[in-house]
């Protein structure tokens, strides 16, 4: 044969290689450029906002506080939803796109319960019982839908290339959306107004906080504590962590992997149910499409916080809530851009891109199974 029988010649002249030894490729340069630009934009924006604030223009201190509290409430909801994404990713290593629809199912069926309770007077006469019942209904619905989706769409795909369950979940997401759209109609259903007890606002440390927002934040904290206890202190929780770490070994240790996976979906679903209840307090209007954007945002939150990390999901959610609630006004507003609230969603996604450029494993670090680590 020909060339290869001879000694392969050095492919390039040494000088040329030497020049390439410059480690910084143009991609790194580009990324550094983005980093620096981001920092400059943020610094200038902050500076602009602060100087405006000092000059007595722009938002008042109370205005900022209101904005932050409402963003926190919104963020807490993202956080609870993010848990579902994070846990499923931690265990199965794919994005369960349909999780937003799991949440939506909770809000829709919760609406039936709330409406029924309202018509029967329970909503006004016994608000806490009513809210609790709605919570239970939403949680049960979301859990059932989550488990059903797992059974129908994901279980047969164990071990398939990871793109496949991801695409399946996108399909499932649309299927669920339009199923609910068909069942409930595409119009908006409005929950009855929140009961009197939480309709006003309370004063905490001198800050007026709307009671609904406070309730939402409290519920989120309680759910997080409950979940933390479940995951760290119970047998099933430990099984979940073991399966997340290594399915094969967990199976060898006598853990029923399939059942644990179902449990993960169930717990994620239940948390989505809680978020559904919170949604009904905060926004009241629901329709079949209500789950899509919160779902995407919640996944963003999960990635922000570091996927697979339960505390990270919550932290990521709260941060995302702040980024998109306060960010536009604080940063972009400071730069003098008009109509910044319209860019809210763009800010949320840009935050995601920036976080992944600065810290690819999320702000609080990833916790992934052995096979998913890079």
């Amino acid at each position, binding site marked *: 044969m020909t060339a290869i029988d001879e000694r392969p010649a050095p492919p390039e002249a040494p000088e040329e290689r030497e020049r390439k030894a410059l480690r910084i490729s143009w991609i790194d340069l580009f990324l550094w450029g983005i980093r620096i630009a981001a920092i400059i934009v943020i610094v200038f924006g902050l500076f602009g906002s602060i100087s405006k604030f000092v000059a007595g223009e722009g938002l008042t201190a109370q205005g900022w506080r209101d904005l932050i509290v409402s963003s926190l409430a919104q963020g807490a909801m993202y956080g609870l939803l993010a848990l579902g994404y994070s846990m499923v990713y931690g265990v199965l290593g794919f994005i369960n796109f349909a999780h937003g629809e799991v949440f939506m199912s909770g809000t829709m069926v919760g609406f039936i319960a709330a409406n029924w309770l309202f018509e029967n007077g329970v909503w006004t006469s016994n608000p806490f019982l009513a809210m609790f019942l709605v919570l239970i209904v939403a949680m049960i619905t979301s859990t059932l839908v989550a488990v059903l989706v797992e059974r129908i769409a994901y279980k047969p795909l164990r071990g398939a290339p990871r793109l496949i369950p991801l695409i399946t979940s996108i399909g499932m997401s649309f299927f669920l959306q*339009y199923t609910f759209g068909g069942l409930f109609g595409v119009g908006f259903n409005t929950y009855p107004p929140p009961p009197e007890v939480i309709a006003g606002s309370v004063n905490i440390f001198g800050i007026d906080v709307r009671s609904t927002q406070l309730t939402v934040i409290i519920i989120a904290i309680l759910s997080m504590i409950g979940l933390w206890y479940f995951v760290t202190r119970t047998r099933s929780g430990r099984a979940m962590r073991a399966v997340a770490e290594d399915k094969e070994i967990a199976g060898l240790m006598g853990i029923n992997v399939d059942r644990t996976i179902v449990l993960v979906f169930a717990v994620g679903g239940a948390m989505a149910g809680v978020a559904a209840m919170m949604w009904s307090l905060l926004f009241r209007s629901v329709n079949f499409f209500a789950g899509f954007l919160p779902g995407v945002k919640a996944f963003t939150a999960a990635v922000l916080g570091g996927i697979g990390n339960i505390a990270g999901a919550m932290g990521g959610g709260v941060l995302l809530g702040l980024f998109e609630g306060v960010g536009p006004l604080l940063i972009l507003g400071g730069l003098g851009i008009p109509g910044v609230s319209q860019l809210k969603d763009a800010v949320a996604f840009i935050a995601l891109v920036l976080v992944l450029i600065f810290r690819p494993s999320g702000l609080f670090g990833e916790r992934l199974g052995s096979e998913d680590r890079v």
Partner: protein
Amino acid sequence: MTTVTTSPPRTASERSPVDRAVMRRVLRVGVLAGGVMVYTAAIGMFQTFNDKEIIDPILSLSYLVLFAIPAVAGASFSKRVAIEGIETEPLSTLDIAKAAIAGAIAGVVVALFALLVDLFPDLRGTFPKLGPQMVRLLTLEYSVASGFIVLPAISAVAAGAGAAFAWIPERIRRPLLLAGASIPVLSMFEPLVDDLFDEIPAITDFLYSPAGALTITSSIVVALVVAGVSYYLRQRDPIIKKRLSQSADVSVRRRTTIVLAIIAILAFVVLPQFLGGIMNELLTNVGLFALMALGLNVVLGFAGLLDLGYVAFFAVGAYTTGVLTSPLSPTWDPVLSWWFAFPAVVVAAVLAGLMVGTPVLRMRGDYLAIVTLGFGEIVRILLLSDWLSPYFGGAQGIRSIPGIPVAGTQVNATSPELMIYAVLVFVFIAVYVSWRLEDSRIGRAWAALREDEDVAEAVGVDTVKAKLLAFVTGAVIASFAGALFAAKVGTVFTNSFQILVSIIILVIVIVGGMGSLPGVVVGALVLIGILGGPNQPGLLQEFGEFKLLIYGALLVYMMLKRPEGLLPSVRRQRELHQDEFLQDAWLDKGEGDEPQSPGPSVAEPGGQA
């Protein structure tokens, strides 16, 4: 697969009619079928489909769909999984009986549902589709009570027929099935047929009633003709097949492919001349989506990068064209012709591809999905924003975009029979480019990247470059679609660039077959042509309301049952049917023959390989 492994094979003598497992299965299938029937009614599909007659005036689409469900369920009773070495149970009348019982159960479920809706009219407050009209239709305009007799009876017959179908000898079954299918197909494709035989109204007048459905007479004639032709062809079939299969020789096969491709191209070139405005409009939309799907196919099918914000490149193409060519575009004054704007579109797409591609280069594979989705939204939001409206028009979009000037005329929507050629030219370019790239050093690098990124890097593939190249190629192809879209529609608004578009392109690529060029084109033809795009009506406008439901269901179904797509690429087929290939390779050992590509119907092996 599961049913086979759990129940040991039984002989006829052992089988007892009161076998509890059998009963449970009958019940389960019946309730499931009933549930699906109820589902179609509860989401309103059943009622909507009633507007479309299949055979005027005796059969509407709604009843066809409704009773197809027990028929399919019934057919499952006479399905046998063939396993080598184990004798399959022969079909028996008992199967039909079982199917009929299951069908009856399904009917009862539906009747119960109708009763429920009838008893609680308040349900309509929450579930708007559950009204008296639905009950009336569901019980075939009889009373609710008689529904308990009529529905189970028809469902039982449908299910029994479904089961009995397997009894019919193969050579008759096929023509029968085709004849049966031809009636709804011809009825639903009425606009197409109407358009094709525009000049010969005698044909359409004979076939269709004023409502646009087949008449009783015409459906009988159609069924007979189709059955006859297919029976005749089937007799001759072996000869043709033999001739084709003998050409295992690669060069002959390649020649066949080329001949087929030329025929297809000629058909595409000639066809628009015979079609009216409606069909050309439809095909133009198909072409635009095919173009985008071809682009996504490079990114996803070749390089394995899941881009959920692909619509962003479409938007970049459309907006660049709009800004440069429209006299109304704010800020940008010179009015360029489409041809001069085109290079700018390509440049903008390359830049956009790099902008999106670079930050995600080092990210984990599936973060890519969410980040690209985010990019898609960022682009849309920025284009819509008041902030950038001095450049992109914001909510008012960019209007008065001229068409493509060709030989003194403007090619745009007012000349659909020319627009289609513009789109076809670019589809051909995209197909040609993808085809050439796939079988080149770059295509192999993408394939390696898709298989195993780390190893690809280790054997000398510059994965950064390969990824960016994929992103940029995909972006440029999508921008072609955008440029054509802007010229065609004449206005661009951001609501044409929703996430939904990305998802639908994804469905096209998946359904057609990731990495398969004919698959992607056929996928676009089938999905956009029949169901339609997000803002584009398809041939079957009756499905409009349930378009996205069907898209979602299709995506799930394909992933579960046929992940390689309708016309799979060879590599995908290998990947998803590795165990079958291994078996074949084992069987072929020593023969020195290349493995036959296994059909989808090959029995799956009992265990994982």
